[in-house]
């Protein structure tokens, strides 16, 4: 078992257990910080695939900006949802229906994914510098999605401004 495969298994274990912890914990702030760790480990997985720029971008956007946003958004909630979980209703009467839905979804995923042939081999670097390659691809072939991204971001920005102004 090579070093890369070992690293991949270790990272996957951390990511999956982190994701599970986020969903199952009652302490919101712990969930946020575990989200931070999970995103950083995903960036490490990108690194294993030799996508340095993607890894750095993942860290920059998720660890830097999204964590900030989530923490500040959490702070807007009232003191009823205290960090130690007191006051949060974590149970409702729909356990049976939710279990069936989740089991159905899992069945679909297994049905689709298991018969695939997953080639497990080590990734080799494809290009010398993936930043230049990515730039070339974005600005030659994918220019329309790129401009649409700017419009989506603008929509998000204006949405937040409108909502935040009404509360003031």
């Amino acid at each position, binding site marked *: 078992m*090579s*070093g*890369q495969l070992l690293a991949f298994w270790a990272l996957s274990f951390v990511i999956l257990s982190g994701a599970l912890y986020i969903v199952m914990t009652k302490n919101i702030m712990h969930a946020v910080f575990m989200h931070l760790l999970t995103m950083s480990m995903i960036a490490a997985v990108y*690194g*294993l695939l*030799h996508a*340095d*720029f993607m890894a750095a*971008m993942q860290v*920059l*956007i998720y660890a*830097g*900006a*999204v964590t*900030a*946003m989530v*923490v*500040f*958004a959490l*702070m*807007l*909630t*009232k*003191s009823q949802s*205290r*960090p130690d979980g007191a006051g949060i209703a974590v149970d409702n009467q729909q356990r049976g229906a939710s279990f069936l839905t989740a089991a159905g979804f899992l069945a679909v995923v297994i049905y689709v994914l298991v018969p695939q042939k997953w080639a497990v081999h*080590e990734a*080799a*670097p494809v290009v010398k*510098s993936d*930043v*230049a390659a*990515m*730039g*070339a691809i*974005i*600005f*030659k072939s994918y*220019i329309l999605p*790129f*401009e649409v*991204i*700017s*419009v989506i*971001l*603008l929509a*998000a*920005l*204006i949405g*937040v*401004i409108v909502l*935040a*102004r009404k*509360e*003031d």
Partner: protein
Amino acid sequence: MNAGMTNYYYVVAFAIVGGVFGGLLLSVARMLRPRKISKTKLEAYECGMEPFEGNWTQYSARFYVFALVFLIFDVEIAFLYPWGTVFRDFGVTSLIEMFVFIGVLLLGLVYAWKKGVLKWL
């Protein structure tokens, strides 16, 4: 391990050394420092008053707006770097494309400015 992985190995090694070094500093401190527990020392510091109400108060939406505007411009910066590397070879077309991108987001910034959202009271 193949040749491309050495960079990542160095990054991980540096991270481990950083963590171990920090742990070392804390261990040395633990050996040297006193330990006298008293109830007053364990209370939160509020400039001499008794702390009340726990540590969870509601904050204004201003912080959230700043964080979101930061996120949006952060994504823009992340796209500026690959463009900055290749735009010389692609002529005026890619210049116009990126200016449209920056222009749209600049529009959002100006809107935020005019609506007074960027004021930190």
